[in-house]
């Protein structure tokens, strides 16, 4: 029996984006991989997500968004995390992304940055390595 601590992931959607299928797919896929996954549901605030990440003691926050606003969303979550003194949280993102968005996100330290249709094994592997 493995005594290895399970990876804990918070999948988060902020603002009013209604496109949920990516988040739900990730939720089941990561659970099937043996991770402990919490999904915030839609219509969340940055503050709520930052607090949830801390109180649930997650290893990774996975931001999902299909409005093209991932850099803005990531920035707001990172700012809220900083306010409560968290500077080492791993944040990954996926959804609708332009090449410029990916550059901006990487600059903030947000990794992954997967577009629609990314092979799931690639996302799983990335979250595993981010959580290490």
């Amino acid at each position, binding site marked *: 029996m493995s005594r290895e601590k399970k990876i804990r992931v918070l999948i988060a959607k*902020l*603002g*009013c*984006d*209604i496109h*949920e*299928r990516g988040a*739900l*797919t990730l939720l*089941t*896929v990561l659970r099937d991989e043996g991770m402990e996954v919490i999904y915030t*549901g*839609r*219509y969340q*605030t940055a503050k709520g997500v930052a607090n949830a990440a801390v109180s649930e003691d997650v290893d990774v926050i996975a931001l999902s*968004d299909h*409005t*093209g*606003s991932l850099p*803005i*969303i990531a920035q*707001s979550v990172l700012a809220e995390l900083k306010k409560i003194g968290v500077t080492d949280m791993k944040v990954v993102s996926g959804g*609708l992304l*332009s*090449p410029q968005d990916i550059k901006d996100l990487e600059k903030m330290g947000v990794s992954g940055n997967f*577009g*629609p*249709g990314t*092979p*799931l094994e690639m996302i799983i592997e990335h979250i595993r390595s981010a959580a290490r």
Partner: protein
Amino acid sequence: MGAHEAKVDRMAGHMVRTATQSGIELKPFYSADDISHLSYEADLGDPGNYPFTRGLYPLMYRDRLWLKSFIVSYATAEETNQAFRQYIANGLTDLRLLCDLPTQAGIDPDHPSAWNSMMCGGVATYAINIYEKMLDGLPLGEAVFEFAHAGMSSFLYFYGVLVAVMENKGIDVKKLRGNSINDPIRTKLVYSCPDFPTRIDRRICLDHIEYSVRNTPNWRPIAPNGVDPCQGGMDAIRELGGALAVATQVILDLAERGITIDEFGPMVFALDAESDFFETIAKFRLARKMWAKIASEKLGAKTKRAMQLKIGIRTSGLSLTSQKPLNNAARVALQILSCVLGGVNSLDASSIDEAVGLPSLEARVFNLDTQHIITHEANIPLVADPLGGSYYLEWLTSHMEREVNKYLEEIEARGGIFACLESGWLNEVMEANRLKVQREKAECKRLVVGVNAFREEGEEGTVNTAIRDVAYKTPSVSMRENLVAEVKAFKAGRDMKRLKPLITELYRATKEGRNTQRAVIEAAREGMTVGECVGVIRAGYGINYDPLQEIEMPDFVREITKM
């Protein structure tokens, strides 16, 4: 000889499935025996005749082509207006209106939760001033409009705004043509829209329909939607079954308000054109047939109109891929073809760049041209229901009818479509199928070209890169800041002496159980915003003004509730 000798594998790309996209197992071929149970008169009928399996009109596309429509909604009203004009010049005949995501959720741009998705997916149409700009110079009395929004508040409010704009311009509102999705099941099942709880959704759905039936007879005030549940995971059987169940329930609810199905007139369904070619065609033919039967046998329709189902299409966004986006051109062309062969009435086809961002002008003109090529070069629409009589298609249509009927019986046994929503059962059904599809993809039992099969190795070529680069980009931070300032100034600049009594009337109509639609038209004309409309109706029910519970009720609304 080099080490890398090219190998030919004649089984490469062999069929991996024996079932349709919705899991209907197929035989290698079909013959007369498979359809011997069908009667031409009862099950098919000539185009224009009950049960309309073969189409609604005797001449079908010869004298009226399907409406060519797009949702057009970019970050600003000016861009959107400009785009509508360009698409109309390229053959657009049906204007689908939408707004950004916060507006669809029922909040204004100055709400703190609007920031992340403001101006994304469309214009922030927070009040009538934006509609006036967005529709400037467009032929309001002649065009066909559709409201494609997610939240139920949107249909009540934007229909109100559109009527107010027309009245202000002195255009007879009886000329208003088009439809609202206005589907209270889809809004919760797929979007969990926060604007109203289901009991309010259900009431304002009927308020909108009742007002429209009596005042704008050419407006179809509900179009039960299968597109979004299907994109959310439902298969074709449950997509169609869900739309039929919603339509049936709404007609029954309207009877309680004294409106018969014959007064209501033709029904419209918003259905999904998926990648499975024959299954999609069978679904459209079957939708017309099943509604005709339900309308006449169950709902007592006497007139031919009331038995006719018009089908509006959105092609599957989910089928599009961001890998090798050029492939989307083939996907969309086949989906458009299935719509034409299935005899639909309006068609909103996705563009090749939609997996990357909002569609670009060029991608959409290509999309319209695909439809023109199907029409004028391939001559597909010359003959109605050209696949009618095909052993396979007729068997498939008939098989799906049995399956949809089973699903409808199950919904009925569980207390009807609203009970199935509230109990979470609909969501379970949707999720189970979503997971099944996901597993099939992971196990390569369902191939998606360029994603889990035939993947591109190495660098992407110039055409695919170009498609990716032209896709529309989302609005910047400074654009968002300007919008928030604009909304605040708009709110501060209104004549509250005129507006307050109109909002008071909306509050009272809500509370006293009177139809809210006229009150919404009057208050929207004087500048009531969408967020205020939602908040005041919620206040009328005694629940929190803000659906997201972040902002306080404005003082003037508080005064109204205390009057």
